[in-house]
């Protein structure tokens, strides 16, 4: 995660997101979905409903 991203979301939020992503793997969520969530939460933070929906379902999220 870049320092800029870190400053945007705060240290505690980053801690929660990292833990969440780690636990998703244990919950059997596919790597592809985890990758999109990592991008949306940590790398290029965007927390809108639309961004999260795309992260969860991919581009077919509009279905």
């Amino acid at each position, binding site marked *: 995660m870049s320092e*800029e991203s870190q400053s945007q979301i705060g240290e505690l939020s980053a801690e929660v997101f990292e*833990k969440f992503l780690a636990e998703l793997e244990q919950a059997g969520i596919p790597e592809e979905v985890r990758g999109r969530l990592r991008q949306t939460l940590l790398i290029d933070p965007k927390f809108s409903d639309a961004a999260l929906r795309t992260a969860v379902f991919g581009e077919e999220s509009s279905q």
Partner: protein
Amino acid sequence: MIQIESIAIKEFRGIRDLKLDLRSKNFAVCGPNGTGKSGVVDALEFALTGAVSRLTGEGRGDISLLAHGPHVDKRAAPEKSTVTVELTIPSLGKKVTIERNVKTPRKPSITPNTQDVLQVLQAVEAHPEVVLSRREIITYVLATPGDRAQEVQALLRLESIEKVRAGLLKIANATDREIRPLTTAESAARDNFLRALGISELTKQKVLDATNEKRTVLGLASLVELADSTSLRDGLETPTPATPQRIVKKQASTDLKHLRQLIDGLGAAEVTQEVEKVKEELTALLADPAAADAVKRERFFRAGAELVSADSCPLCDVTWDPVALRAHVADKIAHMQGIAQKGKSIDAKLIVLGDRLRAIATAAGVIRGHAKLAEPVIPSESLQQLTSSLNERASKFTVSARLADIPAALEEFGAISATAVETIGKVESYVAGLPEPTKLDAARDWLILAQERLEVLREARRRLKAGRERAERAKKISDTYVKASDDVLVALYATVEEDFVRLYRFINRDDEAAFQAKLTPSMGKLGFDVDFYGRGFFPPGAYHSEGHQDGMGLCLYLALMRRVQGDEFRFSVLDDVLMSVDSGHRREVCALLKKEFPNTQFVMTTHDKIWLRHMRTEGLTTAQSAVEFRNWTVDQGPTCWDDRDVWKEIEDALNVNDVRTAAGVLRNYLEFVSGELCHRLRARVEFRGDAQYQLGELLPAAVGQMRNLLSKGKDAANSWKQQQILDDLVARAASFGAIVDASNVERWQINVAIHFNGWENLGKADFAPVVESCRKLVEAFYCTVCNEALRVSPDREAMESVRCGCGQTNINLKKKA
């Protein structure tokens, strides 16, 4: 993060021109109410964030920064209303200057404006919680758990955590809601397929048997397997697109028969009895206004709980954590359990009745499709109206409907319009008049229709499967997120709780050394209960005094800031937050700030001089790191007790022969400085409960104490046989005595000038000597090198020495044993 070196304020709020040198150290701004302290806080906030919270928010009406940020006389020139802050960023080792004006608050001049500097300043701007007022303390201590959670989350920068939580929950709820219509569609597609095949049970074998019977008629090979891609009409010649679609007589007859059965079913005895039963229950309920009202509420809450999907109440748009809101509504429903049972009993019956109406609506839609294929077309608007009418009627048989609307909907439960019945009859006649197909045509039509409906069923099942998978994934992701965030937050609040308890115990160690507290996060709330002298845990406002509550608020704020900023907690403004801390614990608060936060620069405002002294006594601030506002005028803004200002101001007044003003300033200043000297020299003054001491009580006490201390110093030097020091002290005492004598001769005129309206008889020549004698007297209490007033050390117990800040003056008071 940052520390303030200086702030220069021009034409901003109530301040005309003021510069304060904070030098990255703790700084106190003291002065009576209305002297401009808040202007300094506003200016700091403005410089760092471009906003002034005091001018925004609820209840501020037409007040705005642009219109009301500038000094009232500079409203037309907001560009002249400026705040310039020089600060350091310890982590970068850089000094930075920020200048903002009210006209373009979002375009500060920042020097240097390198990326690393801008990043730090953006972080400060995004979270202005470095400024804490007493109003905000209340939000940590006395707020509802929901409000407290919001405030604390903002302080801890947890908004993104909650935003993601709400977003993922919303997605999970939405995808879950999508399953029901997909299930209904799959069910309808299955029924249609079964009707087309003329079978009652959907098994592979029954489908194959029915299909192969028709395929045999057409000479097609029998199907042996029914896989996902199997076509029932495999091998059948594909009709060309130009072939007009025909009504399949047998299927249309089946669909019409199905619709008739459904309509007839409305009049069946068991359905009529069910309707009557619901009517009776409703009538009984409505006859009891209290029960009806309770049911209405309960139904409202249940409907509301289903509608919660975003981070706000669906009714009033107040922002909530959706999880907390659903829990809140569930609590209310749980409290109405008895009523809920009655409501649920009625709802269960209504749902069954509503499903009957919806089934007729769907079947009528199918018949309308046949009517459109007739030649000529059979007008079927009445069937469209029937479909709409039945769906609307069914919508009143749901939990979200108005209770009062249900009886009327029940009255017309079985009503089918005559025009719709007439249209159905026309379609029946048309279909009956269709020629009977040949066996081959019938078999071909059968296979085509069966395959069409099979494809619809397959698509419906694919969509349902995909919807379930999406819902399952969304729920799993949302649940995992809730667990992960709860784990982190519980651990976080545990550390905050521990630190808070330790800080609070420190300032109240005399009577609450065993103090305990509980910070309990749950479902978007943050419970806060504190131990009250071992009698149990209660909300902070239950038994603790206001002073203790203020102490709790401060300690919780400090614990939160330390948790979130760690070593970067370098700057904080405490705006009169300690005003109600009881006097017994003020020293401890000062000691706490100094001991626990040695690297944090606190800027503190207070209207209480005692507080200011405690800050100095505990070493939290020094004489140089404080400013005392003595008064405020709209023309001049706040004026400080600064020696240069005072003597210059007096001189200016005398230059225009304004003796009255000069005398007033002199007297007020002498009163202020005498109090300060009495405190520093530990002079004895007759105690006054209201702390309203006058010049006549303070100045003689300060003078007497100085004489006494010089005398003690001489005795001590004598006992140690320090002749040179003794000689110096003898000279100093003589000089001091002469200055005092001179001022005594002249000072009477001050009171004359102020109290006896004798000023008209005095001129500059008369009053100037008074001023000069007083100036010399005051200077006699100060170090000539560091310009700091002398003080006795220590400030309690046996006096050991008289010192100044730089060490130039150090008079030993302890005699040789």
